[in-house]
């Protein structure tokens, strides 16, 4: 009858106090920089088209004959960009977000995301600010910067931009059978090597920014050509091997954005996943003009894990999904 104790929180009361302190620290950080705190809907008509992110559907008004499917947000990115287009200036949000099926020692399907946008910043300006926020709170050394390509060459022994698909797939045979690998796309193989080769090796480096993602993994970042190679202006911060945030020098071109949404949905179709409606409100806002800016999303639960030195996210959540 272990179920009888399931009403209890999995986080200690001390961890809950640290969570409150962390939130106060974050708000103080942005108040000092005149960044405006905003709130946007958790429940929206649209969600993201990302191939590898599953949204949780919700049906408000389900008493009516044909309730329309809504979604719990996976990130407040799109409505925040609409605020930027409306002239909101520098903004941040502490948001509760939802990603279906993500549950593990570092994942919970419902989690806290800190997201912020800075007008006139590019990716490297924003990395400086991310470092100030994260290292100020964790009191850790400033992050080093490592190019995605360099990280793969060093830790996985393949060139993510130049090595051919066949060799990249062969490199994955340590983890998967040939039958499983035959259906794997190049980016999926790179994700596997990232998870099982690169990330564990990053742990020894302490805080490290990974930059220069391949164009195929640009998501919502601008892409530009550097030394004859097209790379995304996207960065991620890893601290002790734990992925903490994902930032972009934001794409502001609505036509390019629409094309990427369509590519996403094609990839979803090929993978046998449902297509997601394209967020026309975001595209309209981009037409009206999202200012040049950089933005980043940072996992607050993981930041707290690092602060407290724990390895399971349940230790910083009052009630993880199996007790929700």
């Amino acid at each position, binding site marked *: 009858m272990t179920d009888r104790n399931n009403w209890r929180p999995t986080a200690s009361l001390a961890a809950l106090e640290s969570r409150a302190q962390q939130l106060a620290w974050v708000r103080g950080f942005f108040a000092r920089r005149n960044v405006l705190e905003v709130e946007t809907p958790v429940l929206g008509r649209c969600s993201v088209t990302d191939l590898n992110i599953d949204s949780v559907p919700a049906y408000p008004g389900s008493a009516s004959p044909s309730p329309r499917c809504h979604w719990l947000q996976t990130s407040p990115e799109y409505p925040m960009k609409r605020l930027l287009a409306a002239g909101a200036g520098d903004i941040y949000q502490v948001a509760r977000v939802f990603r279906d099926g993500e549950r593990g020692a570092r994942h919970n399907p419902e989690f806290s995301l800190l997201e912020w946008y800075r007008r006139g910043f590019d990716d490297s300006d924003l990395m400086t600010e991310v470092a100030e926020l994260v290292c100020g709170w964790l009191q850790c050394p400033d992050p080093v910067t490592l190019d995605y390509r360099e990280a793969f060459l060093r830790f996985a022994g393949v060139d993510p931009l130049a090595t051919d698909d066949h060799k990249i797939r062969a490199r994955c045979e340590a983890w998967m059978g040939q039958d499983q690998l035959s259906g794997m796309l190049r980016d999926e193989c790179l*994700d596997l090597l990232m998870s099982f080769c690169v990330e564990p090796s990053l742990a020894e480096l302490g805080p490290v920014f990974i930059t220069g993602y391949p164009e195929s993994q640009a998501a919502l970042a601008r892409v530009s050509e550097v030394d004859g190679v097209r790379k995304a202006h996207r960065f991620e911060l890893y601290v002790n091997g734990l992925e903490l945030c994902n930032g972009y020098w934001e794409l502001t071109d609505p036509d390019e954005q629409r094309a990427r949404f369509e590519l996403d949905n094609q990839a979803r179709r090929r993978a046998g996943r449902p297509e997601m409606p394209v967020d026309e409100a975001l595209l309209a806002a981009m037409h009206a003009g999202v200012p040049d800016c950089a933005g980043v999303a940072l996992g607050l639960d993981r930041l707290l894990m690092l602060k407290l030195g724990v390895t399971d996210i349940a230790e910083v959540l009052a009630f993880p999904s199996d007790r929700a």
Partner: protein
Amino acid sequence: MASYSTNEFRSGLKVLLDGDPCIILDNEFVKPGKGQAFNRVKLRNLNTNRQWERTFKSGESLEAADVIDQEMEYLYTDGEFWHFMKTDGSFEQYPADEKAVSDVLKWLKEQDVYTVTLYNGAPLTVTPPNFVELEVVDTDPGMKGDTAQGGTKPATLSTGAVVNVPLFITIGEVLKVDTRSGEYVSRVKN
């Protein structure tokens, strides 16, 4: 046949992998933020008892293995098979081959109850209880004055198992033995 997708994986689940029945020991979910999610799964192959680690794309599934554990009493051996009987009053009997009993042979005592793991209705492995009580059939004579201090000697038990016992143990005594470590625990008073 039922199957389980990676998000149903949990320890104790029995699945078929490469045609062999396996038990899931551990399941780790990993996902680069915007990338493909994977499940790193530790399994024990119930046929070979070897531990495996395999990685799956999240959403992949494995067929469920028709594996169940049953309490059964050991009856006798005819030299080729070792016969067990259900303890639920049905008196149903199951012959286990040498492969299924090889790990448990040295602890096998008639009328004792064992956990028999059935795969597709046939005994796959037999697991002894954590503690068994067996009689000493052979050991060197005990020596006076050696009751408390450390020394040990080998003793052969009625099933053929050899365990290290304190020097004061004599032939005919019944001992409690831990089958997981093969170590002497205590004397059993008759």
